[in-house]
């Protein structure tokens, strides 16, 4: 099993695929070393690429204003096997976070349109990948919803206690 295939097999997006399906997808991917501090994409960018972290860590950040100055605040970090930039597969294909490499890392990179085309061509593979993607997106949505509710509850307590 080649290095990209191993990385894909360990990734949350490609769980449950056969080795043949993994091989096909690995042919579309590029293994990319990324040095600490480099930016993968910025909030508002067109989401063109999807990244699977093979090793290292990538920070997802949101912009805040602190004392009138802009600042990127890390809201999540992704490590080996985790996915960054799924907006490349999901319309409207816009990045809603920024991503920055925290430590020297290795990433498996897919171009969004090429991956979408491959998934459409192999329906079994496409169904499995999109089911995995739904799980990833749904989980993040539910966690963000819970975090938002906790903040709302604190606001209610402070305003109406």
């Amino acid at each position, binding site marked *: 099993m080649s290095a990209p295939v191993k990385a894909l097999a360990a990734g949350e997006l490609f769980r449950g695929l056969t080795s043949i399906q993994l091989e096909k997808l690995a042919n579309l991917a590029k293994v990319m070393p990324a040095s600490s501090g480099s930016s993968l994409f910025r909030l508002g960018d067109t989401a063109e690429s999807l990244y699977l972290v093979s090793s290292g860590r990538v920070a997802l950040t949101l912009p805040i204003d*602190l004392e009138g*100055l802009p*600042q990127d*605040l890390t*809201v999540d970090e992704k490590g080996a096997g985790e996915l960054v930039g799924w907006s490349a597969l999901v319309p409207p294909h816009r990045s809603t976070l920024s991503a920055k490499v925290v430590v020297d890392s290795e990433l498996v990179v897919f171009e969004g349109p090429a991956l979408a085309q491959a998934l459409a061509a192999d329906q079994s593979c496409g169904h499995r990948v999109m089911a995995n993607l739904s799980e990833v997106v749904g989980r993040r949505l*539910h*966690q963000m919803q*819970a975090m938002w509710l906790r903040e709302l509850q604190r606001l209610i307590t402070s305003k109406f206690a």
Partner: protein
Amino acid sequence: MLELSLVLVIVLMVGSASITYAFASERDRAQAPARMEAQQVAQPSHFFAPTEIVKPPRIPRELAISRLEQHVRQERAAVEQFPESPSRQSLRANTSSPFLN
């Protein structure tokens, strides 16, 4: 004779009441400036000046960012199991986040 005596008594009573009232008014007028001064002293010194805003002590920017990120990490950890087992408790549990404590 009796009527004359009664008139005399009434005149005396009214006269003494008037004199007492006049004395009391004069004493109040004399004490009024002293009371006003006392009130002025008792008023807060910044009555007409802008109220002084007490700002919390300023913390360094890096420390503020670090606390915010720690807060986000703790909140993420608190809701980690929410998708598998959603509960009211996980939405209301307190936090030890330094940002809020």
